[in-house]
């Protein structure tokens, strides 16, 4: 950007502006996912029978997906530490590993949806399944957005060795998506 906005460079709090904004994005996402999880919990406590529905979710696939996301979180933090050393090659490598693991997550998720739907558990089967598809769908949408943004950062910014701070910012977002899954996983898969 030719004309540099002076405001963007200021940092009265000591947190760089981009990162501060990401914290606020995460804050607003916390209440969005939190609202969904809270309504799910209200229903879950009310309807004991939901535990039986939860028994039909595939813990193996859910577990594998947790593993992909945890590992991708590890890679994105490595990308961040490479970006801090201004090592574009390593940073790009780890960013693409992260995207790959996100792809694994989406692939497993699609397979899981397909098997569940073929077993007759659709969005309309019961409210448990409605919540299941809404929550995982919203989460999957965030994973997809994160992958796209990460690819843009890897190819547009890091390849051209600029905007290094964006690696950290997308990393924070990615970790948050991981944390949402850390909570969705026990809620939808292992608590039965």
């Amino acid at each position, binding site marked *: 950007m030719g004309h540099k906005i002076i*405001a963007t460079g200021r940092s009265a709090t000591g947190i760089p502006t981009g990162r501060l*904004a990401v914290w606020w994005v995460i804050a*607003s996402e916390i*209440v969005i996912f939190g609202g*969904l999880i809270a309504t799910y919990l*209200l229903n879950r406590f009310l309807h004991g029978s939901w535990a039986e529905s939860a028994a039909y979710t595939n813990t193996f696939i859910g577990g594998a997906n947790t593993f992909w996301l945890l590992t991708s979180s590890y890679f994105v933090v490595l990308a961040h530490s490479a970006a801090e050393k201004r090592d574009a090659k390593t940073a790009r490598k780890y960013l693409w590993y992260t995207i790959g693991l996100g792809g694994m997550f989406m692939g497993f998720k699609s397979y899981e949806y397909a098997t569940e739907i073929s077993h007759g558990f659709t969005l309309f089967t019961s*409210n448990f399944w*409605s919540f299941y598809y809404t929550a995982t769908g919203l989460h999957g949408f965030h994973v997809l957005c994160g992958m796209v943004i990460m690819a843009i950062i890897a190819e547009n910014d890091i390849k051209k060795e600029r*905007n290094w701070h964006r690696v950290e910012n997308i990393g924070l977002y990615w970790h948050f998506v991981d944390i949402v899954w850390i909570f969705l996983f026990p809620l939808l898969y292992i608590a039965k």
Partner: protein
Amino acid sequence: MADTATATAVDHHDDHGHSESFWSKYIFSTDHKIIGFQYLFTGMAMGLIGGFFSYVFRMHLAFPGSEVPFFGIVSPAAYNSLVTNHGTIMIFWVAMPVLIAALGNFLIPLMIGCDDMVFPRINRLSYQIFLISAIVLIASFFVPQGGFGGAWTAYPPLSSEAEYNGTPFGAPMWLIAVTLEIVAFLLGGINFITTVMNARAKGMKLYDIPMVVWMIVIASILFMASVGPLVAGAVMLLFDQTLGTGFFDPAAGGDPVLWQHLFWFFGHPEVYVVLLPAMGVVIEIICTFARKKLFGYKMILYSSVGLGILSFFVWAHHQFISGVDPRATYLFTTTTLLISIPVALMLFAMIGTLWGGSIRFTTAMLFALSFIAEFLIGGVTGIWLGSSGTDIYLHDTYFVLAHFHYTFVPIAIIGTFSALYYWFPKMFGRKLNEFWGKIHFWGTIIPFNGIFLPLFILGAAGQHRRIAGYTAYPDLYTENFQDLRVFATGSLIVLILFQIPFFVNFIVSLKRGQKAGPNPWNANTLEWVAPSPPPHGNFGDDLPQVYRGPYEFSVEGREEDYWPQNEPDPGPSETSK
């Protein structure tokens, strides 16, 4: 995310400021002032639509069955749709864009002394999403079966089942429009908060920030914190409407009251989201035109933070008759009555500021003073509605309607007008005409009371607020009550007619108004340092530095009765008095 095309476009019109086209200067600009004007004019246009709706259904209520000029016969479905969209437009597309987005965008960078928002392109994106949301909403009036008519609160099952609300296309479009609008304001809010947290002028400490900036930031945080559950709820309701899931359908094990919780957990803080910026505007104006230091800066700040926190504990007072747990109503009654304390503190601080000031009755000041008076009526009548016992009788009557119009009209209409009369010189470099401004003021305030005072009586008499054709209810269709309705409608028409001088004044003053210098009101805050209207980049090359709080009026020992924030302290020889 750096799309190079726009990046080069930005470069281009920064380097050659004069050769830019209308499109890049006014439509796709990233300048915070232009985006503020975009919000302002979109909000005013939506306000005209919302005002027209109120005219149509008030005419229908005053003269049931007869044809309304410029509209025609109002069918019950049309009535529901008009009422619903009047409420939705006035809150989401008028109060929020004008008070938070327009004022926030225009004022925040100027008042904290920086050249733009920290994320100018996200700011532009926010307006574009907002514009799309407005277009979707307007389009929803013209789809088959018409616009959504299930009230702005959209309670299921009325809102979730097309066979109940009769608008299979209007209802989802309404919901999508509201969700897009929420996304736009989340983006804008993040921008406001980050800007104020990080980009303040050198020397500006937390207690040197002008009150209106504080209020817009607190409002943005409140909005962000409260809207999450509603976004989740909106997704669920959209699935209920379009796909046929049963999140809020008791037959499928869902809970329709849950939506009310999701909605009002947002909906009540939302009241304070629009209230706080209006309060901030009034505080700025009162300080300037009373030529006095703000009474209790920190107290106002802390009470607005307390107000924000408390506002998350009161939402179920909207649901006292929805079948919530009666024991919970004790709790919510208590918190609701508690919340009047911070509001009263803030109003008292405004009145305390007036005490002993040398008050100048400009139009902006008149509007600001009337805000205090009218909002007090709204606040005091709320006590009956916050107590669960009386609310059971008054719920969903015209009493409620009159109550929240006595709060929302001061916020959205009076607050906006006072802000416009005050900041118009800064926005466009010319003053609005004061004579016509005062005519506009009296022509707004007197009919406003004429509309809503009779509605208190109608509500206390038991008229339900959502009945389209009450002629079928002989108890409500007596001559006395009908006279009150006609009086209210007549007042509304007078109020609408008195907006014509305002619009004429606005347009004429743009071109021929009295030229204003950088600081026409002798105010202290930083926006008055910049030229009027401020150029792109606001302050030129050297951004201002701040030396003191924003309200140092009538300081002893100074020749002028004001002391701009950016003026360095005089040397020790001058201060020794």
